[in-house]
């Protein structure tokens, strides 16, 4: 399941809901992304996430299906927020459930690496020097590319 929303989410409730009633699950891996107060040496007071409504949902659904094709998952969830967020706020949640831990870890890392470079979101960062658009990081491209080579 995927959700693109302005409002916050409840990590524990999402994990517990995925586990509930499915005793084939051996493990649930998850990742929560937060707004940091420091990025590339700048003190960040807020970020504003812009996205491309329609394309975002379409692409997130595609990548969730791709994760389910690559690994034997019992379930997968992606929640990504947009709008104005402050340091400490949750940005993104990925949760995957599988009979075996390695499938869940791999699927969660794959989805996060993909979201960093392939989901139509852009971050406007507010710092002491004013506002600027966050540039794509080469390290994120490299992380995303490794999934292309391996599969």
């Amino acid at each position, binding site marked *: 399941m995927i959700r693109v929303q302005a409002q916050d989410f409840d990590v524990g409730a999402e994990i517990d809901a995925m586990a509930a009633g499915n005793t084939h699950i051996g493990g649930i891996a998850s990742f929560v*992304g937060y707004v940091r107060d420091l990025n590339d040496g700048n003190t960040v007071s807020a970020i504003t*996430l*812009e*996205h*491309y409504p*329609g*394309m975002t949902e*379409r*692409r997130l659904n595609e990548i969730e299906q791709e994760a389910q094709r690559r690994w034997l998952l019992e379930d997968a969830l992606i929640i*990504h927020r947009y709008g104005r967020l402050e340091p400490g706020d949750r*940005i*993104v949640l990925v949760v995957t459930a599988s009979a075996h831990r390695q499938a869940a870890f791999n699927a969660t890392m794959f989805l*996060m690496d993909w*979201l*960093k*470079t*392939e*989901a*139509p*979101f*852009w*971050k*406007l960062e507010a710092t002491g020097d004013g506002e600027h*658009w*966050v*540039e*794509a*990081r080469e390290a*994120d491209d490299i992380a995303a590319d490794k999934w292309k080579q391996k599969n």
Partner: protein
Amino acid sequence: MKLLYFAWVRNKVGIAEENITLPDHVGDIAALLSWLRERNDGFADALSDMTAIRFAVNQEIAALDQPVTDDDEIALFPPMTGG
């Protein structure tokens, strides 16, 4: 054709979206970008460095030689920074 602009591309061209009718000679993304660059300095600036621009045709990432028609939704934006 529906055109959408995001992030600093939107800031530079000054609008978030517009509906246009394509001139006859514009048949692919590359030609569309050339035509847009001629409109004003904002577009010329926004679209000056092709390595910094990504484009989607009907919500799918596309290449410069992808054909486009008046029925398409085209989006121009910087590299994505989600997650």
